[in-house]
Protein backbone atom coordinates (compact mmCIF):
# COMPACT_ATOMS: atom_id res chain seq x y z
CA UNK A 1 0.00 0.00 0.00
CA UNK A 2 1.53 3.26 -1.12
CA UNK A 3 1.24 6.13 1.22
CA UNK A 4 -0.59 8.53 -1.06
CA UNK A 5 -3.16 5.85 -1.84
CA UNK A 6 -4.00 5.21 1.80
CA UNK A 7 -6.82 7.77 2.11
CA UNK A 8 -8.45 6.33 -1.01
CA UNK A 9 -8.35 2.77 0.36
CA UNK A 10 -9.87 4.13 3.53
CA UNK A 11 -12.75 5.82 1.75
CA UNK A 12 -13.44 2.87 -0.54
CA UNK A 13 -13.52 0.50 2.43
CA UNK A 14 -15.84 2.79 4.35
CA UNK A 15 -18.18 3.09 1.38
CA UNK A 16 -18.13 -0.68 0.91
CA UNK A 17 -19.12 -1.28 4.52
CA UNK A 18 -21.85 1.32 4.41
CA UNK A 19 -23.43 -0.07 1.24
CA UNK A 20 -23.12 -3.80 1.89
CA UNK A 21 -26.27 -4.17 4.05
CA UNK A 22 -28.36 -2.44 1.41
CA UNK A 23 -27.73 -5.32 -1.00
CA UNK A 24 -26.86 -8.27 1.15
CA UNK A 25 -29.57 -9.35 3.60
CA UNK A 26 -28.51 -12.03 6.00
CA UNK A 27 -29.02 -11.20 9.68
CA UNK A 28 -26.74 -13.90 11.02
CA UNK A 29 -23.88 -12.64 8.87
CA UNK A 30 -24.14 -9.20 10.46
CA UNK A 31 -24.65 -10.61 13.91
CA UNK A 32 -21.45 -12.66 13.68
CA UNK A 33 -19.42 -10.14 11.68
CA UNK A 34 -20.12 -7.45 14.22
CA UNK A 35 -18.24 -9.43 16.87
CA UNK A 36 -15.37 -10.24 14.51
CA UNK A 37 -15.07 -6.57 13.56
CA UNK A 38 -15.25 -5.59 17.21
CA UNK A 39 -12.18 -7.75 17.79
CA UNK A 40 -10.47 -6.26 14.75
CA UNK A 41 -10.93 -2.75 16.14
CA UNK A 42 -9.96 -3.74 19.69
CA UNK A 43 -6.85 -5.58 18.50
CA UNK A 44 -5.77 -2.74 16.24
CA UNK A 45 -6.25 -0.33 19.15
CA UNK A 46 -4.38 -2.64 21.53
CA UNK A 47 -1.46 -2.88 19.10
CA UNK A 48 -0.80 0.88 19.24
CA UNK A 49 0.81 0.64 22.66
CA UNK A 50 1.29 -3.13 23.00
CA UNK A 51 2.71 -3.76 19.55
CA UNK A 52 4.67 -0.62 18.73
CA UNK A 53 5.58 0.34 22.28
CA UNK A 54 5.88 -3.12 23.85
CA UNK A 55 3.74 -2.24 26.88
CA UNK A 56 1.21 -5.05 27.28
CA UNK A 57 -2.27 -4.00 28.30
CA UNK A 58 -4.23 -6.80 29.92
CA UNK A 59 -7.15 -4.52 30.69
CA UNK A 60 -8.82 -4.22 27.30
CA UNK A 61 -12.14 -5.20 28.86
CA UNK A 62 -11.79 -2.36 31.37
CA UNK A 63 -11.56 0.24 28.58
CA UNK A 64 -14.21 -1.54 26.55
CA UNK A 65 -16.44 -1.79 29.64
CA UNK A 66 -16.01 1.87 30.60
CA UNK A 67 -17.19 2.74 27.09
CA UNK A 68 -20.10 0.33 27.31
CA UNK A 69 -21.31 1.63 30.65
CA UNK A 70 -20.89 5.30 29.81
CA UNK A 71 -22.91 4.96 26.63
CA UNK A 72 -25.56 2.70 28.19
CA UNK A 73 -26.02 5.17 31.02
CA UNK A 74 -26.24 8.14 28.69
CA UNK A 75 -28.71 6.44 26.31
CA UNK A 76 -30.93 5.11 29.01
CA UNK A 77 -30.96 7.50 31.87
CA UNK A 78 -30.36 10.76 30.14
CA UNK A 79 -31.66 10.11 26.63
CA UNK A 80 -28.57 11.62 25.03
CA UNK A 81 -28.28 11.12 21.24
CA UNK A 82 -26.24 8.04 20.27
CA UNK A 83 -23.44 9.78 18.44
CA UNK A 84 -22.73 12.04 21.39
CA UNK A 85 -22.96 9.12 23.80
CA UNK A 86 -20.43 7.20 21.70
CA UNK A 87 -17.95 10.07 21.65
CA UNK A 88 -18.47 10.67 25.37
CA UNK A 89 -17.76 6.98 26.00
CA UNK A 90 -14.53 7.28 24.02
CA UNK A 91 -13.58 10.40 25.94
CA UNK A 92 -14.15 8.85 29.36
CA UNK A 93 -12.24 5.76 28.31
CA UNK A 94 -9.38 7.97 27.06
CA UNK A 95 -9.36 9.75 30.41
CA UNK A 96 -9.19 6.37 32.07
CA UNK A 97 -6.13 5.74 29.85
CA UNK A 98 -4.56 8.96 31.15
CA UNK A 99 -5.09 7.85 34.75
CA UNK A 100 -3.66 4.38 34.27
CA UNK A 101 -0.86 5.79 32.15
CA UNK A 102 0.16 8.43 34.67
CA UNK A 103 0.22 5.91 37.48
CA UNK A 104 2.13 3.13 35.76
CA UNK A 105 3.68 4.02 32.40
CA UNK A 106 6.72 5.61 34.04
CA UNK A 107 7.56 2.22 35.46
CA UNK A 108 8.69 -0.89 33.63
CA UNK A 109 6.28 -2.75 31.37
CA UNK A 110 5.42 -5.42 33.89
CA UNK A 111 4.00 -2.80 36.29
CA UNK A 112 1.81 -1.43 33.54
CA UNK A 113 0.54 -4.94 32.75
CA UNK A 114 -0.31 -5.49 36.40
CA UNK A 115 -1.93 -2.05 36.69
CA UNK A 116 -4.22 -2.79 33.73
CA UNK A 117 -5.29 -6.08 35.30
CA UNK A 118 -5.94 -4.37 38.61
CA UNK A 119 -7.85 -1.59 36.87
CA UNK A 120 -10.21 -4.14 35.36
CA UNK A 121 -11.11 -5.49 38.78
CA UNK A 122 -11.36 -1.97 40.17
CA UNK A 123 -13.86 -0.63 37.62
CA UNK A 124 -15.80 -3.87 37.84
CA UNK A 125 -16.23 -3.46 41.57
CA UNK A 126 -17.13 0.21 41.19
CA UNK A 127 -19.92 -0.76 38.78
CA UNK A 128 -21.02 -3.60 41.07
CA UNK A 129 -21.49 -1.06 43.83
CA UNK A 130 -23.19 1.66 41.82
CA UNK A 131 -26.99 1.31 41.73
CA UNK A 132 -27.29 3.93 38.97
CA UNK A 133 -25.33 1.53 36.75
CA UNK A 134 -27.47 -1.45 37.71
CA UNK A 135 -24.98 -2.93 40.19
CA UNK A 136 -24.77 -6.72 39.74
CA UNK A 137 -28.22 -6.83 38.11
CA UNK A 138 -27.11 -4.96 35.03
CA UNK A 139 -28.79 -2.54 32.64
CA UNK A 140 -31.36 -3.21 29.93
CA UNK A 141 -30.98 -0.99 26.93
CA UNK A 142 -33.80 0.86 25.19
CA UNK A 143 -33.19 0.27 21.50
CA UNK A 144 -33.18 3.25 19.20
CA UNK A 145 -34.96 2.97 15.83
CA UNK A 146 -32.81 2.00 12.87
CA UNK A 147 -32.62 4.57 10.09
CA UNK A 148 -34.75 3.78 7.04
CA UNK A 149 -31.83 2.94 4.76
CA UNK A 150 -30.97 -0.17 6.78
CA UNK A 151 -33.60 -2.78 7.52
CA UNK A 152 -32.77 -3.23 11.17
CA UNK A 153 -30.49 -2.20 13.99
CA UNK A 154 -27.96 -4.99 13.49
CA UNK A 155 -27.18 -3.77 9.99
CA UNK A 156 -26.62 -0.27 11.30
CA UNK A 157 -24.39 -1.59 14.08
CA UNK A 158 -22.43 -3.61 11.55
CA UNK A 159 -21.87 -0.49 9.47
CA UNK A 160 -20.82 1.49 12.53
CA UNK A 161 -18.37 -1.17 13.71
CA UNK A 162 -17.05 -1.54 10.18
CA UNK A 163 -16.41 2.19 10.11
CA UNK A 164 -14.71 2.18 13.51
CA UNK A 165 -12.46 -0.68 12.39
CA UNK A 166 -11.47 1.05 9.19
CA UNK A 167 -10.74 4.32 10.97
CA UNK A 168 -8.70 2.48 13.63
CA UNK A 169 -6.72 0.71 10.94
CA UNK A 170 -6.10 4.01 9.18
CA UNK A 171 -4.86 5.57 12.42
CA UNK A 172 -2.64 2.60 13.14
CA UNK A 173 -1.15 2.70 9.64
CA UNK A 174 -0.46 6.38 10.02
CA UNK A 175 1.14 5.95 13.43
CA UNK A 176 3.30 3.06 12.25
CA UNK A 177 4.75 5.30 9.57
CA UNK A 178 5.02 8.51 11.55
CA UNK A 179 7.49 9.83 14.10
CA UNK A 180 5.19 8.57 16.86
CA UNK A 181 5.53 4.99 15.66
CA UNK A 182 9.26 5.38 15.23
CA UNK A 183 9.57 6.67 18.79
CA UNK A 184 7.39 3.90 20.20
CA UNK A 185 9.44 1.23 18.43
CA UNK A 186 12.64 2.87 19.65
CA UNK A 187 11.49 2.75 23.27
CA UNK A 188 10.23 -0.81 22.82
CA UNK A 189 13.72 -1.82 21.72
CA UNK A 190 15.57 0.06 24.45
CA UNK A 191 14.03 2.73 26.59
CA UNK A 192 17.28 4.24 27.88
CA UNK A 193 18.79 4.43 24.42
CA UNK A 194 15.58 5.98 23.08
CA UNK A 195 15.61 8.71 25.77
CA UNK A 196 19.25 9.45 25.09
CA UNK A 197 18.38 9.82 21.40
CA UNK A 198 15.76 12.43 22.26
CA UNK A 199 12.62 10.29 22.35
CA UNK A 200 10.11 11.57 24.93
CA UNK A 201 9.31 8.04 26.00
CA UNK A 202 6.73 8.71 28.71
CA UNK A 203 4.78 11.15 26.56
CA UNK A 204 4.64 8.75 23.61
CA UNK A 205 3.51 5.85 25.80
CA UNK A 206 0.82 8.07 27.24
CA UNK A 207 -0.36 9.20 23.77
CA UNK A 208 -0.57 5.60 22.62
CA UNK A 209 -2.43 4.51 25.73
CA UNK A 210 -4.91 7.35 25.49
CA UNK A 211 -5.62 6.84 21.79
CA UNK A 212 -5.88 3.10 22.33
CA UNK A 213 -8.23 3.68 25.27
CA UNK A 214 -10.36 6.09 23.26
CA UNK A 215 -10.83 3.56 20.46
CA UNK A 216 -11.58 0.72 22.88
CA UNK A 217 -14.14 2.92 24.61
CA UNK A 218 -15.82 3.78 21.32
CA UNK A 219 -15.95 0.08 20.41
CA UNK A 220 -17.43 -0.72 23.83
CA UNK A 221 -20.01 2.04 23.53
CA UNK A 222 -21.85 0.16 20.77
CA UNK A 223 -21.93 -3.15 22.57
CA UNK A 224 -24.96 -2.39 24.79
CA UNK A 225 -26.98 -1.70 21.63
CA UNK A 226 -25.82 -4.96 20.13
CA UNK A 227 -26.45 -7.15 23.12
CA UNK A 228 -29.41 -5.33 24.68
CA UNK A 229 -28.36 -5.98 28.24
CA UNK A 230 -25.07 -5.50 30.06
CA UNK A 231 -23.85 -6.66 33.46
CA UNK A 232 -20.43 -6.33 35.07
CA UNK A 233 -19.25 -9.94 34.87
CA UNK A 234 -19.63 -10.40 31.12
CA UNK A 235 -18.46 -6.85 30.33
CA UNK A 236 -15.31 -6.71 32.47
CA UNK A 237 -14.41 -10.21 31.37
CA UNK A 238 -10.69 -11.01 31.29
CA UNK A 239 -11.54 -13.31 28.38
CA UNK A 240 -12.01 -10.24 26.16
CA UNK A 241 -8.59 -8.91 27.14
CA UNK A 242 -7.02 -12.30 26.60
CA UNK A 243 -8.66 -12.70 23.17
CA UNK A 244 -7.38 -9.35 22.00
CA UNK A 245 -3.86 -10.05 23.17
CA UNK A 246 -3.75 -13.47 21.51
CA UNK A 247 -5.33 -12.27 18.27
CA UNK A 248 -2.72 -9.55 17.94
CA UNK A 249 0.07 -11.89 18.88
CA UNK A 250 -1.02 -14.53 16.41
CA UNK A 251 -1.68 -12.10 13.61
CA UNK A 252 1.68 -10.41 14.04
CA UNK A 253 2.34 -7.99 16.87
CA UNK A 254 3.77 -4.57 16.09
CA UNK A 255 2.54 -4.38 12.49
CA UNK A 256 -0.62 -2.66 11.33
CA UNK A 257 -1.75 -5.77 9.40
CA UNK A 258 -1.11 -8.26 12.21
CA UNK A 259 -4.06 -7.52 14.52
CA UNK A 260 -6.44 -7.39 11.53
CA UNK A 261 -5.35 -10.82 10.31
CA UNK A 262 -5.36 -12.34 13.80
CA UNK A 263 -8.78 -11.00 14.73
CA UNK A 264 -10.34 -11.97 11.40
CA UNK A 265 -8.99 -15.51 11.55
CA UNK A 266 -9.47 -16.28 15.23
CA UNK A 267 -12.66 -14.24 15.55
CA UNK A 268 -14.22 -16.09 12.61
CA UNK A 269 -13.18 -19.47 14.01
CA UNK A 270 -14.75 -18.51 17.33
CA UNK A 271 -17.96 -17.41 15.68
CA UNK A 272 -18.13 -20.56 13.57
CA UNK A 273 -17.40 -22.71 16.59
CA UNK A 274 -20.08 -21.09 18.68
CA UNK A 275 -22.67 -22.02 16.04
CA UNK A 276 -21.47 -25.50 15.20
CA UNK A 277 -20.15 -26.61 18.58
CA UNK A 278 -20.50 -24.35 21.58
CA UNK A 279 -19.13 -21.01 22.66
CA UNK A 280 -17.66 -22.63 25.74
CA UNK A 281 -14.56 -23.50 23.73
CA UNK A 282 -13.91 -19.92 22.56
CA UNK A 283 -11.11 -19.33 25.00
CA UNK A 284 -9.71 -22.81 24.47
CA UNK A 285 -9.44 -22.16 20.73
CA UNK A 286 -7.53 -18.97 21.39
CA UNK A 287 -5.30 -20.48 24.05
CA UNK A 288 -4.38 -23.41 21.81
CA UNK A 289 -3.58 -21.07 18.94
CA UNK A 290 -1.41 -19.02 21.27
CA UNK A 291 0.65 -22.04 22.30
CA UNK A 292 1.11 -23.28 18.74
CA UNK A 293 2.20 -19.88 17.45
CA UNK A 294 4.36 -19.13 20.44
CA UNK A 295 6.38 -22.23 19.66
CA UNK A 296 6.37 -22.33 15.86
CA UNK A 297 5.98 -18.80 14.59
CA UNK A 298 6.72 -15.89 16.91
CA UNK A 299 6.19 -13.51 13.96
CA UNK A 300 2.54 -14.59 13.76
CA UNK A 301 0.48 -15.08 10.62
CA UNK A 302 1.81 -11.83 9.23
CA UNK A 303 5.30 -13.27 9.62
CA UNK A 304 4.30 -16.41 7.76
CA UNK A 305 2.72 -14.44 4.91
CA UNK A 306 5.75 -12.21 4.72
CA UNK A 307 8.09 -15.17 4.54
CA UNK A 308 5.95 -16.80 1.85
CA UNK A 309 5.91 -13.64 -0.20
CA UNK A 310 9.44 -12.64 0.66
CA UNK A 311 8.77 -9.48 2.64
CA UNK A 312 10.16 -8.38 5.95
CA UNK A 313 8.30 -9.61 8.98
CA UNK A 314 8.93 -6.86 11.49
CA UNK A 315 7.09 -3.64 11.93
CA UNK A 316 10.03 -1.32 11.61
CA UNK A 317 9.89 1.80 9.58
CA UNK A 318 12.12 2.34 6.61
Amino acid sequence: MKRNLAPMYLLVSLAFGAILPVFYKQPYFYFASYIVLQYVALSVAWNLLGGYGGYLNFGTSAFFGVGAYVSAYLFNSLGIPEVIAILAAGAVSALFGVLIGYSSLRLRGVYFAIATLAATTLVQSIVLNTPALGSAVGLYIRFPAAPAIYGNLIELLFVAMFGISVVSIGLSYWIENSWIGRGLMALRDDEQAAETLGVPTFRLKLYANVLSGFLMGVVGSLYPLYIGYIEPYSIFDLGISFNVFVMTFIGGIGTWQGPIIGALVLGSIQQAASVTVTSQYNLAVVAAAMLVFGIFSPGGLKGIFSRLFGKRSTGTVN
Partner: protein
Amino acid sequence: MLDAKGVTKNFGGVRALSDVDFRVEKGERLGLIGPNGSGKTTLLSIIAGTIRTDKGRLAYKGRDITRVSPHKRAKLGIGRTFQIPKPLSSMTLLDNVIVPLVFIRGLHNKDGETSDVALELLQQVGLSAKASLRPKQLTQLELREMELARALAGKPELLLLDEVLAGLTSGEADDVVELLRGLNGRGIAIVMVEHIMRAVMGFSQRIVVLDFGVKIAEGDPEEISNDPEVLKAYIGE
Protein backbone atom coordinates in the same frame (compact mmCIF):
# COMPACT_ATOMS: atom_id res chain seq x y z
CA MET B 1 29.38 24.68 30.31
CA LEU B 2 28.68 21.75 32.64
CA ASP B 3 28.99 22.17 36.37
CA ALA B 4 28.18 19.19 38.57
CA LYS B 5 28.53 19.56 42.32
CA GLY B 6 28.45 16.90 45.01
CA VAL B 7 27.34 14.08 42.74
CA THR B 8 26.68 10.97 44.84
CA LYS B 9 25.23 7.62 43.88
CA ASN B 10 24.56 4.48 45.88
CA PHE B 11 23.46 1.23 44.29
CA GLY B 12 22.15 -0.73 47.22
CA GLY B 13 25.21 -1.02 49.41
CA VAL B 14 27.65 -0.05 46.67
CA ARG B 15 28.77 3.56 46.70
CA ALA B 16 29.43 4.21 43.00
CA LEU B 17 30.11 7.94 43.40
CA SER B 18 30.90 10.02 46.51
CA ASP B 19 30.48 13.76 46.46
CA VAL B 20 32.13 14.29 43.07
CA ASP B 21 32.53 17.80 41.65
CA PHE B 22 32.88 17.75 37.88
CA ARG B 23 33.21 20.67 35.48
CA VAL B 24 33.53 20.76 31.73
CA GLU B 25 34.42 24.01 29.98
CA LYS B 26 33.04 24.98 26.62
CA GLY B 27 34.98 23.33 23.80
CA GLU B 28 37.18 21.41 26.22
CA ARG B 29 38.75 17.96 25.69
CA LEU B 30 38.50 16.21 29.02
CA GLY B 31 39.69 12.71 29.89
CA LEU B 32 37.88 10.76 32.60
CA ILE B 33 39.89 7.79 33.82
CA GLY B 34 39.97 5.36 36.70
CA PRO B 35 40.21 1.63 37.40
CA ASN B 36 37.33 -0.75 36.62
CA GLY B 37 34.28 -0.02 38.71
CA SER B 38 35.47 3.42 39.77
CA GLY B 39 32.24 5.12 38.67
CA LYS B 40 33.06 6.58 35.25
CA THR B 41 30.04 5.17 33.44
CA THR B 42 27.78 6.10 36.34
CA LEU B 43 29.00 9.70 36.17
CA LEU B 44 28.30 9.88 32.43
CA SER B 45 24.81 8.45 33.00
CA ILE B 46 24.11 11.05 35.66
CA ILE B 47 25.17 13.83 33.30
CA ALA B 48 23.06 12.38 30.46
CA GLY B 49 20.17 11.89 32.86
CA THR B 50 19.49 8.16 32.60
CA ILE B 51 20.55 7.86 36.26
CA ARG B 52 19.47 10.41 38.88
CA THR B 53 22.03 11.63 41.33
CA ASP B 54 21.21 10.93 45.00
CA LYS B 55 22.63 14.28 46.11
CA GLY B 56 24.14 17.39 44.60
CA ARG B 57 23.21 19.51 41.59
CA LEU B 58 23.96 19.65 37.90
CA ALA B 59 23.99 22.83 35.86
CA TYR B 60 24.36 22.99 32.09
CA LYS B 61 24.89 26.30 30.34
CA GLY B 62 23.84 28.05 33.53
CA ARG B 63 20.61 26.13 33.82
CA ASP B 64 19.83 23.63 36.59
CA ILE B 65 19.25 20.26 34.94
CA THR B 66 19.28 18.04 38.03
CA ARG B 67 15.68 16.98 37.45
CA VAL B 68 15.53 17.37 33.67
CA SER B 69 14.68 14.19 31.75
CA PRO B 70 17.29 12.58 29.48
CA HIS B 71 15.48 13.36 26.22
CA LYS B 72 15.36 17.05 27.14
CA ARG B 73 19.05 17.00 28.00
CA ALA B 74 19.67 15.45 24.59
CA LYS B 75 17.84 18.37 23.02
CA LEU B 76 19.85 20.81 25.11
CA GLY B 77 22.96 19.41 23.45
CA ILE B 78 24.21 16.60 25.67
CA GLY B 79 25.05 13.49 23.66
CA ARG B 80 26.49 10.22 24.90
CA THR B 81 27.56 6.80 23.75
CA PHE B 82 27.00 3.63 25.75
CA GLN B 83 29.98 1.53 26.78
CA ILE B 84 27.90 -1.59 26.15
CA PRO B 85 26.13 -0.66 22.92
CA LYS B 86 22.37 -0.22 23.10
CA PRO B 87 21.17 -0.67 19.55
CA LEU B 88 17.50 -0.38 18.63
CA SER B 89 17.37 -4.00 17.57
CA SER B 90 14.25 -3.99 15.39
CA MET B 91 15.60 -1.22 13.19
CA THR B 92 18.27 -1.05 10.54
CA LEU B 93 21.47 0.81 11.25
CA LEU B 94 20.22 3.70 9.15
CA ASP B 95 17.00 3.90 11.19
CA ASN B 96 19.03 3.82 14.39
CA VAL B 97 20.69 7.03 13.25
CA ILE B 98 17.43 8.53 11.95
CA VAL B 99 15.86 8.36 15.44
CA PRO B 100 17.99 11.19 16.89
CA LEU B 101 17.73 13.12 13.63
CA VAL B 102 13.96 13.11 14.01
CA PHE B 103 13.71 13.53 17.76
CA ILE B 104 16.64 15.81 18.55
CA ARG B 105 17.12 17.74 15.35
CA GLY B 106 13.47 17.74 14.29
CA LEU B 107 14.14 16.49 10.76
CA HIS B 108 11.23 14.96 8.94
CA ASN B 109 10.60 11.28 9.58
CA LYS B 110 10.36 9.95 6.04
CA ASP B 111 12.33 12.50 4.10
CA GLY B 112 14.96 11.36 1.62
CA GLU B 113 17.11 14.17 2.96
CA THR B 114 16.94 12.74 6.46
CA SER B 115 18.22 9.42 5.13
CA ASP B 116 21.05 11.22 3.34
CA VAL B 117 22.13 12.92 6.56
CA ALA B 118 22.00 9.58 8.39
CA LEU B 119 24.06 7.91 5.68
CA GLU B 120 26.66 10.66 5.88
CA LEU B 121 26.96 10.13 9.64
CA LEU B 122 27.44 6.40 9.12
CA GLN B 123 30.08 7.19 6.56
CA GLN B 124 32.00 9.27 9.11
CA VAL B 125 32.38 6.20 11.29
CA GLY B 126 33.00 3.86 8.37
CA LEU B 127 29.66 2.05 8.46
CA SER B 128 27.87 3.35 5.38
CA ALA B 129 28.16 -0.01 3.61
CA LYS B 130 26.17 -1.63 6.42
CA ALA B 131 23.38 0.95 6.61
CA SER B 132 20.62 -1.49 5.75
CA LEU B 133 21.76 -4.23 8.13
CA ARG B 134 20.22 -4.94 11.53
CA PRO B 135 22.20 -4.64 14.76
CA LYS B 136 22.34 -8.40 15.26
CA GLN B 137 24.26 -8.69 12.00
CA LEU B 138 26.99 -6.40 13.29
CA THR B 139 30.00 -7.01 15.48
CA GLN B 140 30.34 -5.45 18.92
CA LEU B 141 32.95 -3.11 17.46
CA GLU B 142 30.67 -1.94 14.69
CA LEU B 143 27.93 -1.34 17.22
CA ARG B 144 30.27 0.96 19.13
CA GLU B 145 30.84 2.89 15.95
CA MET B 146 27.08 3.08 15.52
CA GLU B 147 26.89 4.50 19.05
CA LEU B 148 29.23 7.27 17.95
CA ALA B 149 27.25 7.99 14.78
CA ARG B 150 23.98 8.19 16.76
CA ALA B 151 25.51 10.50 19.35
CA LEU B 152 26.84 12.78 16.61
CA ALA B 153 23.45 12.82 14.88
CA GLY B 154 22.03 15.01 17.65
CA LYS B 155 24.68 17.70 16.97
CA PRO B 156 25.76 17.73 20.63
CA GLU B 157 27.69 20.57 22.21
CA LEU B 158 28.81 18.27 25.00
CA LEU B 159 29.73 14.78 23.87
CA LEU B 160 30.21 12.02 26.44
CA LEU B 161 32.15 9.06 25.07
CA ASP B 162 32.26 5.82 27.04
CA GLU B 163 35.20 3.78 25.74
CA VAL B 164 34.58 4.30 22.04
CA LEU B 165 38.15 3.27 21.27
CA ALA B 166 38.09 -0.05 23.09
CA GLY B 167 38.92 -2.95 20.80
CA LEU B 168 39.96 -0.82 17.86
CA THR B 169 43.33 -1.42 16.20
CA SER B 170 45.69 1.47 16.78
CA GLY B 171 45.14 2.62 13.19
CA GLU B 172 41.36 2.65 13.64
CA ALA B 173 41.69 4.37 17.00
CA ASP B 174 43.81 7.09 15.38
CA ASP B 175 41.07 7.62 12.78
CA VAL B 176 38.42 8.04 15.45
CA VAL B 177 40.63 10.36 17.49
CA GLU B 178 41.19 12.46 14.40
CA LEU B 179 37.42 12.62 13.83
CA LEU B 180 36.96 13.72 17.44
CA ARG B 181 39.64 16.39 17.13
CA GLY B 182 37.80 17.70 14.09
CA LEU B 183 34.54 17.88 16.05
CA ASN B 184 36.30 19.54 18.95
CA GLY B 185 37.78 22.05 16.52
CA ARG B 186 34.21 23.08 15.75
CA GLY B 187 33.62 23.85 19.41
CA ILE B 188 32.18 20.61 20.76
CA ALA B 189 33.27 19.78 24.29
CA ILE B 190 34.27 16.12 24.61
CA VAL B 191 34.48 13.97 27.71
CA MET B 192 36.42 10.82 26.90
CA VAL B 193 36.26 7.81 29.19
CA GLU B 194 39.07 5.53 28.13
CA HIS B 195 41.35 2.79 29.37
CA ILE B 196 43.87 3.22 26.54
CA MET B 197 46.25 5.64 28.26
CA ARG B 198 48.19 6.59 25.17
CA ALA B 199 45.00 7.76 23.46
CA VAL B 200 43.43 9.58 26.38
CA MET B 201 46.65 11.28 27.46
CA GLY B 202 47.31 12.40 23.90
CA PHE B 203 43.79 13.65 23.34
CA SER B 204 42.89 15.38 26.57
CA GLN B 205 43.72 18.89 27.73
CA ARG B 206 42.73 17.98 31.26
CA ILE B 207 42.20 14.69 33.09
CA VAL B 208 39.95 13.73 35.99
CA VAL B 209 40.71 10.53 37.88
CA LEU B 210 38.14 8.52 39.82
CA ASP B 211 38.88 5.72 42.23
CA PHE B 212 36.14 3.89 44.15
CA GLY B 213 33.74 6.70 43.30
CA VAL B 214 36.00 9.45 44.66
CA LYS B 215 37.76 12.07 42.58
CA ILE B 216 41.39 11.52 43.51
CA ALA B 217 43.15 13.78 41.02
CA GLU B 218 42.57 16.42 38.40
CA GLY B 219 45.05 18.17 36.15
CA ASP B 220 46.82 18.19 32.82
CA PRO B 221 48.10 14.85 31.43
CA GLU B 222 51.65 15.62 32.50
CA GLU B 223 50.65 16.18 36.15
CA ILE B 224 48.36 13.19 36.21
CA SER B 225 50.91 10.72 34.89
CA ASN B 226 53.29 11.75 37.70
CA ASP B 227 50.71 11.83 40.48
CA PRO B 228 51.55 9.30 43.19
CA GLU B 229 47.85 8.88 44.19
CA VAL B 230 46.97 7.95 40.62
CA LEU B 231 49.83 5.53 40.29
CA LYS B 232 48.80 3.90 43.53
CA ALA B 233 45.18 3.56 42.36
CA TYR B 234 46.25 1.94 39.13
CA ILE B 235 48.98 -0.30 40.41
CA GLY B 236 47.34 -1.10 43.73
CA GLU B 237 49.05 -1.12 47.08
